């Protein structure tokens, strides 16, 4: 399973390089005054789906696993390239914990991602964090296959300046 992920991310990195040089995916669109003025929906979709806006965590952990560094590196590159100035990191936990602890755990996860992005050159003032604890599960079965997808941090693009 882990190997599959790694292979997938390498593939994504390859496509980023290709796309950004050759096609119009990142073309400017949108009305003036719109915070998303220079980020098209297709561009946001690209960020979410191709780069990957989500990384996963082990049970009760907030350490960024090595396999996700490439995802976060790509996030950082894209954010810098698009001059994104408002980013929110959401931290989440699975249902196998108490409500308050999971809020604190989600905050740890979101902050770990924030700190990593800062280390990659994103200004800290452009990043905010929010924890949802176990309030917003992505998958709803009560098995590890769902829990593993719910222990996550999501990078949400809120807007850009330039």
């Amino acid at each position, binding site marked *: 399973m882990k190997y599959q992920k790694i292979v997938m991310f390498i593939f994504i990195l390859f496509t980023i390089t290709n796309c950004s040089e050759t096609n119009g995916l990142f073309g400017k669109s949108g009305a003036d005054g719109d915070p998303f003025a220079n980020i098209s929906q297709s561009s946001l979709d690209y960020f979410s789906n191709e780069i990957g806006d989500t990384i996963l965590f082990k049970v*009760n952990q907030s350490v960024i696993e090595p396999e996700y560094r490439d995802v976060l590196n790509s996030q950082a590159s894209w954010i810098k390239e698009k001059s994104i100035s408002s980013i929110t990191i959401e931290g989440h936990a699975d*249902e*196998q*914990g*108490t*409500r*308050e*602890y999971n*809020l*604190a*755990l989600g*905050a*740890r996860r*979101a*902050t*770990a991602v*924030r*700190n990593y992005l800062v280390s990659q050159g994103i200004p800290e003032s452009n990043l905010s*964090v*929010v*924890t*949802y604890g176990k*309030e*917003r*599960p*992505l*998958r*709803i*079965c*009560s098995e590890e296959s769902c829990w593993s997808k719910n222990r996550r941090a999501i990078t949400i693009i809120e807007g850009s300046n330039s």
Partner: protein
Amino acid sequence: MVFFLSSTFVNKGLSQANVPELDIDVTEGVVEPIPIAFPNFITRDFSSSLIASEISKIVKNDLLKTSLFRFITENTYISDVTSIDSPVRFADWRAINSDLLLVGNVSIINETITIKFRLWDVVGQNEIFKGVQFQGPSNSVRRIAHKISDLIYSGVTGEGNYFDTRIAFISERGPKNNRTKRLAIMDQDGANLNFLTNSDSIVLAPRFSPDARKILYTSYETGKPRVYLLNLVTGNLRSFPQLPGMTFAPRFSPDGKKIILSITDNGNTDIYTLNLENNSKKRLTKNVAIDTAPSFSPDGKFIVFESDRGGNQQIYVMPSNGGSAKRISFGNGRYGTPVWSPRGDMIAFTKMHKGNFHIGVMRKDGSQERLLTKAFIDEGPTWAPNGRIIMFFRETAGVNGAPSLYTIEVTGRNLRKIELSSFASDPSWSPLLN
């Protein structure tokens, strides 16, 4: 958006010394329910009889739920009760194996209900309390009934009252991955349900003030979890902009003058108090661990909380001004959500072990741990004001999994689900109403 409600109630109780002849010990295991005869309250007119039967129904429901009482069928009664002041023919009540006899009369004049009642110990042939009278407006039927239940319960068991109380909780609707949550309040028996917020923002974990007139809770109204203080009487909603970061897990101090809560700033969660009168903030824990779910001892001298400073989630106790904390949970598994009993003797908690959740209790030094429940998720205990009963929420597993409220006695007996029309979590049991 916040709604509010208020209630008025006139209480003219004339309670006298309680001398429980018939002593039920609710601290021990299985108890055989006490047979009680409860003839219809005496009434003079139709409107009084309607009120009387409503009160009877509520009292019976309260007492049956304790599993300590059973009501003797009326068609076996030998004696008629025509006045609460006439001598009791004890032999007639013993003949039908009754241990207790409750008699009363109800009148309603100018929208004011007056109820007088007496509880007799048929075995000892004496009164458990004499000539108690309650008076209240016609909309106070339920509160009058709960006060009667409290007198009977405390008179017979020697334990404190708990029926005239309310529950604040989170009412939940919708699928598991798109739940809406609303702050709600109801009577202890599920009646008089009112919503205090709409479903626009996630709301979590309401907590009553010691005077039962205010509620602390956490809301995502601004997009982040933040603590709010709602005054139930005035409807005033107070926020705490002076606190940084994300704030949650609030509770009142026993004197109601401070709140204790968790603040998450820069990824780290610690415990703080905030003085509600002068807004001064005090940090009680300072380390990289998660310190949360704080709860004061009833004397205000100590704080019990959970922390993963030792590697995983465990329960600690520290002085109320901070200082060195002592770990008190040492069993297998993880421990969270500690709540100090109103009596001060015990701490209720959530325990996670081998894929199950438990509600448990331990003494305040961590000794004598007992697990009361076991389920996929049992979480968030709250104490009845008499320290004998714990309410919590149980969440079922799977894609249709959802939470409901339950009560259990501290003995581990009498697990009961509170039937509601929506999912429900995060209960907070109010102190006794006045």
